[in-house]
């Protein structure tokens, strides 16, 4: 230890604060003059301190995990309460459904109701859209020995898309419901009124020919109708929307702009089939 006389030591002690303040200004100047100095010092310090932080990370992680555990427990309790309520509600619905099922069964027995056969279907991949005679149509790739016939109904995973119009040996063409040439008999589900859904080449087909006294209501569900024997009844088609001009249109459930695969259902219906080729019809021979 360096021995200093007491007055000298006192003088040093009194001087040290101004000296250090001057040194602080010096450090500021140094930091301004060499901008990289601070960065270098910082990285050295971080290198030196990283073992400490690494050692700290372990207990910190444990504490954090414990806190999360507690929060999870609280959340679990909350969820448990809501689930219990929901379960209760669902149990009531379940019993209601069972009662309805039994009633339905009984009514069917009484009415000698003929159940519909489950329709057979094949799924085909959409390989191209557009092309051909129609503006809104898709081409399906099918295997060489397929059982697709004209008039089959095409649905995607959400609802009605269209109808098979041309069948080749390895492909089939589906006329979409949005095409200008598409006319689909539909039923408005609430009012049970029949109407025709007319394609416009736009995203939403229009509704037309609904009976007098019925007005299609915004938000009403639209399903196919069995009228004319072209479609089975009750396939989901879309929802009624009123256009800006007030004309009723149908917002389709099916996503026609991003079709990648469709299911083709065979309901065995041959009410109206599309012509073999779209051409001018020949004049009939018998009428002379």
């Amino acid at each position: 230890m360096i021995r200093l006389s007491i007055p000298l030591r006192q003088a040093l002690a009194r001087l040290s604060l101004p000296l250090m303040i001057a040194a602080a200004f010096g450090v500021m100047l140094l930091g301004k003059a060499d901008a990289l100095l601070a960065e270098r010092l910082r990285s050295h310090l971080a290198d030196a301190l990283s073992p400490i932080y690494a050692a700290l990370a372990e207990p910190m992680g444990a504490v954090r995990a414990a806190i999360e555990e507690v929060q999870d427990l609280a959340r679990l309790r909350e969820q448990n309460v809501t689930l219990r309520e929901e379960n209760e509600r669902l149990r009531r619905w379940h019993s209601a459904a069972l009662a309805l099922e039994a009633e339905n069964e009984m009514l069917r027995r009484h009415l000698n109701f003929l159940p519909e056969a489950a329709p057979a279907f094949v799924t085909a991949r959409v390989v191209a859209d557009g092309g051909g005679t129609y503006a809104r149509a898709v081409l399906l790739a099918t295997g060489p020995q397929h059982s697709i016939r004209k008039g089959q109904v095409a649905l995607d995973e959400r609802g009605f898309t269209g109808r098979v119009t041309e069948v080749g040996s390895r492909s089939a063409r589906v006329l979409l419901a949005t095409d200008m040439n598409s006319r689909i008999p539909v039923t408005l589900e609430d009012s049970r009124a029949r109407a025709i859904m007319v394609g416009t080449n736009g995203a939403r087909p229009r509704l037309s020919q609904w009976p007098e006294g019925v007005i299609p209501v915004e938000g009403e569900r639209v399903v196919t109708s069995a009228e004319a024997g072209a479609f089975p009844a009750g396939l989901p088609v879309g929802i009624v929307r009123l256009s800006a001009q007030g004309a009723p249109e149908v917002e389709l459930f099916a996503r026609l702009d991003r079709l990648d695969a469709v299911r083709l259902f065979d309901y065995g219906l041959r009410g109206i089939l599309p012509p073999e080729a779209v051409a001018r019809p020949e004049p009939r021979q018998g009428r002379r």
Partner: protein
Amino acid sequence: MANPPFRRPQGRPAPAPGLLRRLDDFARLAFPGFSTGFLMVLAAAPVSLPSPVFAAALPCVFFWSVFRPAAMSPPAIFLLGLLLDLLTLAPLGAGVLVLLAVHGVTLRFRRFLARQSFLAVWVAFCAAAVGAAALFWALQSLLALRLPPFAPALHAALLSAGLYPAIALLLTRVHEAMRQAENAP
């Protein structure tokens, strides 16, 4: 040849301090600086708190400047300030100057403060913290030549004011223990 007689001072001469005694003294002298530095490093650990380094350094520096200024010497504060600047992303020298200013102001009033109650010291510390945060903010804006947002500085001042009682409680215990050790024969 009458040499002036060499007069020994009265009383027993103090025994030469042994190694343990010296170590003890040194530990007592070095504890404030090292504990403060360690606390700052801990506060810089990556947790989601708004800049607790400044808020941890300020109460320590204030407390030791009031109650044991011999152990919290300006060179130690200089090093602590440098550590503060490096741990936070402040421009070099700003933290040094702020801590030195707090130390200087506190030294000026320490005779008055040391006699006050804890609450009065806390109030004084709150004022010092606000002043220090404002100075820190001003130095940062001056050195970086742009205006940083004022909210973080305010948060740091409030956080350090809130941390002071906890830190002071701990440090008061340590200080008492040191004083007992010093007064013991």
